[in-house]
């Protein structure tokens, strides 16, 4: 869980940077260029397979973990543990994961649909897919925006625990560094949630102010 988790966290950094290109007021040209590069660079293509495997392992591992952990306590408590000391995010990693899996399926479904749009020419004149257009259209739907933003909140919660938990699982716990890792994890989860959520919100805001 920890290794795939850290790998996915690194992927999120790349994803956020790419997404932020959408905010550039160039009708999505930069973003499309980036998407095109990502799609056709052979190294990235290999990376995509690895990323896919990363997701698959993380998901399967997670499902197995939740299942075996549920089996470890066949009879549940009548009164739930009221310990206030532990963070609530840590206890909901499984449910968060399920929400994110649903999000991921919808997200990928949309992503792979982009071929239905007419290609646009990039700076060099080659025709590339107009992925940005898809995004702009999608984010005019308030329900979709809400779904996206909520999912990003869940991503934040998931990372909030997952980030520092990954270090703990790898045995990296130290009086000096652990508080820093925890703070970094918190900041990171905030940056990802805020950064990722800002994009649909701004696009949607622009859309409603335009019309």
């Amino acid at each position, binding site marked *: 869980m920890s290794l795939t988790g850290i790998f996915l966290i690194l992927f999120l950094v790349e994803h956020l940077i790419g997404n932020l290109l959408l905010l550039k007021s160039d009708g999505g040209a930069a973003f499309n260029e980036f998407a095109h590069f990502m799609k056709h660079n052979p190294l990235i293509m290999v990376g995509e397979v690895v990323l896919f495997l990363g997701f698959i392992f993380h998901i399967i591992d997670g499902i197995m973990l939740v299942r*075996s952990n549920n089996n470890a306590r066949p009879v549940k408590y009548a009164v739930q543990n009221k310990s206030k000391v532990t963070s609530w995010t840590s206890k909901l990693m499984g449910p968060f994961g399920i929400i994110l899996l649903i999000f991921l399926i919808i997200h990928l479904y949309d992503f792979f649909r982009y071929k239905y749009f007419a290609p646009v020419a990039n700076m060099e004149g080659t025709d590339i897919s107009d992925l940005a257009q898809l995004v702009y259209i999608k984010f005019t739907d308030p329900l979709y925006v809400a779904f996206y933003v909520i999912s990003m909140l869940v991503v934040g919660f998931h990372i909030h625990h997952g980030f520092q938990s990954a270090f703990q699982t790898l045995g990296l716990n130290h009086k000096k560094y652990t508080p820093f890792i925890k703070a970094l994890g918190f900041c990171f989860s905030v940056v990802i949630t805020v950064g990722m959520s800002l994009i649909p919100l701004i696009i949607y805001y622009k859309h409603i102010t335009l019309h």
Partner: protein
Amino acid sequence: MNLTLKIWRQKNAQDKGKMESFNVSDVSPDMSFLEMLDVLNEQLTRKGIDPIHFDHDCREGICGMCSMVINGRPHGPKDLITTCQLHMRSFKEGDVISIEPWRAGAFPVIKDLVVDRTSFDRIIQAGGYVNVNTGGIPDANAIPIAKKIADEAMDAAACIGCGACVAACKNASAMLFVSAKVSQLALLPQGQVERQTRVEKMVAQMDKEGFGACTNTGACEAECPKGISLTNIARLNREFFSAKLTSDNI
């Protein structure tokens, strides 16, 4: 004060068991929690009802025998104490208190609040020791041990093996218990010789017993009556990975 107790009653391992309500009156705030149950048990016995069975022995917080989940928390509402050290002044008139046994597949209920914790013994038997026979040992001062290391080993060794960590963990994981012993022996020079095989064997036995996996919620540390730290779990993970990477065992 007068209290209502909701207590898990289960005749034996095969019985399904259920929560039952009892009223106790004239509870003094100076009583310990277990003494309050003694009073209830005396009342039940006089009525010819089988008293509530619960594990307890030293009643001073060190033997690790007492094991009750009180209002959803192992060893009750106060931190860093065992059930037997909990006193009734922590409760107030009219309180409804739920009392349940440790719940884990690896800790099957024997009767009422009594559970079978021999899985812990088997984990220790798998390797929680140094292989030395009695006698023929060099002088105790032959190997100096830095005070800091000895203190850290003592912090881990303070574990009383009560199982509150398992009871508290949403996954019923025994990682804190196992890590306390692994840490103690990994820190001390005496434990170095078998450092790798020890952690592999103990973790394998832990998994075999059916404890859940650690998801780092920290509930174990929060409920541990002896304040055993999560850093021990990190050390266990470190020890485990390094053993797995370098050992011959496939």
